[in-house]
């Protein structure tokens, strides 16, 4: 099997061709860096994405503070993860890198704040 992908690892957006059989990747071509190779391999086996959103803050300057996943999570879990994010509320002060939800949905990935409030 052959699949054409657009790499999302960086803004270059290289066109990558992956040859694979089932979940075994035979070859990756068209990438211009190592990250592209990694992206193509995970994309075939278990596509993952980083997500960014906001959580409610009590007593802060803004009503919400931005958060992100500390590492990519499986694509299929994005909306479940959003539910978790929308269920939490943090108290000000919030610092950058502060863990808002540890080990979200058992993925081993944390939801961390990306700004102060």
């Amino acid at each position, binding site marked *: 099997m052959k699949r054409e*992908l*657009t*790499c*999302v*690892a*960086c*803004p270059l*957006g290289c*066109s990558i061709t992956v040859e694979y059989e089932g979940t075994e990747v035979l070859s990756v071509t068209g990438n211009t860096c190592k990250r592209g190779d990694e992206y193509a391999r995970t994309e075939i086996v278990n596509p993952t*994405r*980083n*997500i*960014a*959103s*906001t959580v*409610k803050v009590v007593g802060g300057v*803004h*009503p*919400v503070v*931005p*958060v*992100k996943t500390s590492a990519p999570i499986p*694509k299929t879990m*994005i*909306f479940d993860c*959003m539910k978790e994010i929308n269920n939490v509320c943090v108290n000000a002060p919030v610092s*950058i890198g502060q863990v808002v939800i540890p080990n979200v949905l058992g993925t081993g990935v944390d939801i961390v704040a*990306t*700004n*102060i409030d």
Partner: protein
Amino acid sequence: MLNYDLVVVGGGPAGMAAALKAKECGVERIIILERAETLGGILEQCIHSGFGLTYFKEELSGPEYAARFIDMVEKTDIVVKCDTMVLDIDENNLVTAVNKKDGLLKIQAKAIVLAMGCRERPRGALEIAGTRCSGIMTAGTAQKYVNLDGYMPGKKVVILGSGDIGLIMARRMTLEGAEVKVVCELMPYSGGLNRNIVQCLNDYNIPLRLSTTVVETHGKDRLEGVTIAQVDDHLQPIESTKEYIECDTLMLSVGLIPENELTKNVGIAIDRVTNGAVVDEMRQTDHKGVFACGNVLHVHDLVDFVTMESQLAGQGAADYILGNAPAEAVYVNTTTGNGVRYLVPQRVNVKNPNDVKLYFRVGKIYKGAKVVLEIDGRIISSKKRPKLAPGEMENVIISAAELAKMDENSTITVRVEE
């Protein structure tokens, strides 16, 4: 009246990088004037990741990228005045600004860096028929509502324009539970990065319709729907392709305009294509001691390039203030050849002892075309690029050795060869 060596107008990524570089070069009295409540500029609402890959070699969100520079500014003696609006700059570099605390401020500057950024093209700039109901806004305004105010502006969304902000907001609204029905793009290609088409639209099965526009909005108090239509080769809507789409929100992501009111008031020459000032390789405008960088100069795709350009402007301003600029200036204009829409800088001082990078954008999508740099009719470089697109800023370098060979009669041209 206050006296400063350098006044920086705007405390976004451009203004902060320019001020920090000038400080590093030895400029003593620097002040940043920022209209918003905090430093950081538009990055504060760009909560998605993708920033810093070039400059910091890691992937950061907008606020994280801004925070690194805010921290650096705070560690210096650079004075920052937020909530402060610059009203005027005169021909003697006297800056007039106003805020609630100080009232009217008059600041005499030796040099000025213009870093006001850009704003979005509004609805009024498009000729869409229909009422003035609520629910029609720019994508950036929607982004502020959702990411800073924690407020969802709608449930069923149509987006016009496939610039990066539009694509990012298509994903953001979907994540928050809205239904994004379609993204329409007038041109036959997207104005956004390929990766954003993949991770913002394709990931969520949001259709992108190229060569399609919104011709009418419907609704009395709140938007109830829009009529979209395909356009012909002359970008005119085709009557028979009209289609009604029910929605309560229309977001516009139809281009950015550098915010150059102050620049124009001083009488600084403006490039008709970039809508930013005409500058030299250190980003100095034709008004001595006034520099411009970042999105107020030309709209960038990546903040990393804004930072790097602004460091050049900061260095240029420092050289000017400290008397380190090349004593002699011989300017040669850069000329756009086939396929090249604009070039920044628009002119180069050939007495500059360093390599000069020319940034440009092409007018359409090219595959496997060559970018040719020609000086005095000689081909200096000719490099094949797998893909050139209007949405992606490109660059070519003129080496210091080539510059040294040039004089006032020289010519510099960049063109695309298919």
